[in-house]
């Protein structure tokens, strides 16, 4: 489908005027009102076959007396982000919920409600998401501009009620928020009958630090550094998504070399994390020999990162309009040397794992995430692809990847083995892509990008991080300060996949199911 066909179809079926469309780069904003908002969202959901990718509010009460709501879908075929925009007057905070029809909107609407006090009328679930009832009093909405921190937090006297599964022999196993391993905080409540898990309720938000609010008032440069602290193992991807959003907002052009370096950074991050998780899956079924090998490979990549960027997690290597990882021929030689060693080790690791019958027995048919479930919950990235969904932002918006042999990797069964295979295959692609890209860097011309001038505007930046899409939407005010920054890490919606995939599995297999996804606590909780 071409963009024009799409536009005509939407205009015909909604009866909207053409002026309702505002186009800006790869973003389309369709102005709606409270009557047709729900209908247009449903229409886009169906003709773009896209889950809700990002959905957020913005406080414009001071300037125009309204809260602005933006619900964004991804048009894979038309290569556009399509938003439905609606204003909610400050004296009537209700808006028609779309989560009763589109499951992937549910967490977003809960978030909008707790952060802005806007009420999604008709939503099946309006519980708070991150501001836990136990510690946060009613009536305080952090992302409103006039928000003042409550004088007293903690001990509100309220508590959270978990779903109760009842029946003969059913018992509960509570886990967390402090876990047995060295890992982020979250609470898992298992309901078990005999051995099989019959329900798993996740309670997250323990890593909520109020990141979106902290972006407000920062300059683009300060915010860039801060974006690296949202999810530490995807620091580069977050920082890249942020800079793409700012570049889009301010209309800044990026040089070819910068694009190549950024793709290399993104793929390096993918490599060390995939290898880390493959090792994690092995250790979670008590196969420590192979996990030890994986940790050596990871360490070598982290040391390579440090050589290239002076930081093991590539922090500080990305800026608005700038990124230089491979600065000279020597660093390219070093890069290729380490990667070729990594390739040998990864092949060996794969060999060890796939020739172990007990390991294969553990991962095969364990933790199956069905395609339909993944689709409904808006599961994206690696988790979605292993269940057969064809979504990879590197395919939708290829950019520099067009000059490589990049291919989208998918599985079909959606079990732990499928995710393991996707990781191994993505590792191979990443290694190949880096090698190809590093040959295209031009060292001859001095390409010093001048410090970019940040002007006011809005923009969206999205990258395919190793977990999946990381999306930033920023609004920059007159003085170049961030006024609103919406972050969607793939983990936000993907966490729901975990509670669906464990049904019928046993608790001892839960760690390997969890590790096969390895969602970010901090990226989801913000």
């Amino acid at each position, binding site marked *: 489908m071409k963009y024009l066909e799409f536009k005509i179809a939407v205009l015909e079926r909604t009866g909207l005027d053409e002026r309702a469309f505002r186009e800006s780069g790869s973003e389309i904003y369709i102005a709606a009102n409270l009557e047709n908002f729900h209908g247009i969202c449903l229409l886009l959901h169906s003709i773009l076959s896209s889950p809700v990718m990002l959905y957020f509010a913005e406080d414009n009460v001071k300037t125009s007396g309204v809260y602005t709501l933006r619900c964004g879908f991804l048009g894979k075929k038309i290569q556009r982000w399509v938003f439905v925009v609606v204003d909610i007057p400050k004296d009537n905070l209700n808006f028609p919920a779309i989560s009763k029809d589109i499951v992937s909107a549910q967490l977003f609407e809960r978030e909008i409600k707790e952060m802005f006090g806007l009420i999604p009328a008709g939503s099946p679930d309006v519980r708070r998401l991150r501001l836990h009832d136990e510690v946060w009093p009613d009536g305080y909405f*952090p992302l409103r501009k006039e928000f003042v921190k409550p004088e007293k937090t*903690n001990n509100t006297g309220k508590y959270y009620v978990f779903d109760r599964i009842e029946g003969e022999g059913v018992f509960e196993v509570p886990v967390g928020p402090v876990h*047995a391993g060295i*890992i*982020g905080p979250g609470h898992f409540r298992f309901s078990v009958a005999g051995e099989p898990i019959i329900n798993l309720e996740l309670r997250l938000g323990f*890593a909520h630090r109020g990141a979106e609010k902290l972006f407000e008032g920062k300059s683009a440069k300060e915010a860039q*550094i801060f974006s690296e602290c949202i999810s530490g193992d995807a620091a580069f991807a977050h920082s890249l998504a942020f800079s793409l959003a700012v570049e889009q907002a301010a209309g800044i052009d990026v040089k070819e070399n910068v694009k190549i370096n950024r793709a290399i950074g993104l793929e390096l991050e993918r490599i060390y994390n995939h290898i*880390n998780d493959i090792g994690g899956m092995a250790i979670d079924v008590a196969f420590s020999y192979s996990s030890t090998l994986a940790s050596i490979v990871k360490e070598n990549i982290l040391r390579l990162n440090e050589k290239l960027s002076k930081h093991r997690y590539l922090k500080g290597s990305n800026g608005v309009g700038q990124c230089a990882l491979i600065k000279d021929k020597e660093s390219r030689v070093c890069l290729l040397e380490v990667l070729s060693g990594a390739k040998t080790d990864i092949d060996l690791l794969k060999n060890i794992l796939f020739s172990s019958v007990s390991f294969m027995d553990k991962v095969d048919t364990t933790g199956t995430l069905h395609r339909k479930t993944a689709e409904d919950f808006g599961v994206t990235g690696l988790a979605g692809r292993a269940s057969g969904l064809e979504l990879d932002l590197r395919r939708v918006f290829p950019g520099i990847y067009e000059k490589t042999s990049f291919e989208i990797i998918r599985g079909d069964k959606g079990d732990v083995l499928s995710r393991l295979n996707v990781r191994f295959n993505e590792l191979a692609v990443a290694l190949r892509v880096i090698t190809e890209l590093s040959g295209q860097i031009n060292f001859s011309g001095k390409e010093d990008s001048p410090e970019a001038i940040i002007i006011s505007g809005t923009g969206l930046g999205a990258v395919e991080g190793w977990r999946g899409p990381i999306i930033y939407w920023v609004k920059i005010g007159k003085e170049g300060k961030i006024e609103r920054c919406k972050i969607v890490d793939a983990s936000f919606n993907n966490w729901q996949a975990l509670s669906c995939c464990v049904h019928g599995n046993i608790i001892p297999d839960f760690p390997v199911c969890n590790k096969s996804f390895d969602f970010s606590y901090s990226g989801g909780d913000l």
Partner: protein
Amino acid sequence: MNNIINIANARIQKGIVTENLDLIGSKLKTEIQKKFARSLFLREVDTGSCGACESEIISAINPVYDLQRFGVDFVASPRHADALLVTGPVSLNMSLALKRTYEAMPSPKFVITAGDCALDGGPFKGSYYIEGGVSKIIPVVFHIPGCPPKPIDLVLALLLAVKNLKRS
């Protein structure tokens, strides 16, 4: 077994870091022998970090650094721990869990913090949803700076922390 040792030897990039590590490590081992009769058990608590500190703590027990050979290990329960190693700026949601984890430890006990967030909130300073540092909730004897601290820094800091520890 020989195979993995061969792989490890072939893959580990030798350098200044690894040599310093042996020196620092042997001192750490002596110190732990003296004060803890062979082993120091740590319980790690993440109070809302970005995950980079956790990644580096895990790196410290990979075969390159192999912190366990110096007598330090990470345990799954606070009941088994001599000390807590805490990361993150302490989100409001984690405040009670942190306190309870500390209370669940047998005495004598102490707390070390790792990463800039754990000191005073770091980049999250001033947020509406953080306590702003671990020491506001439980007593801390030693802080390891860094964003995140590198594995070698963790080993060195553990040495300093154990060295400075007074009998109470």
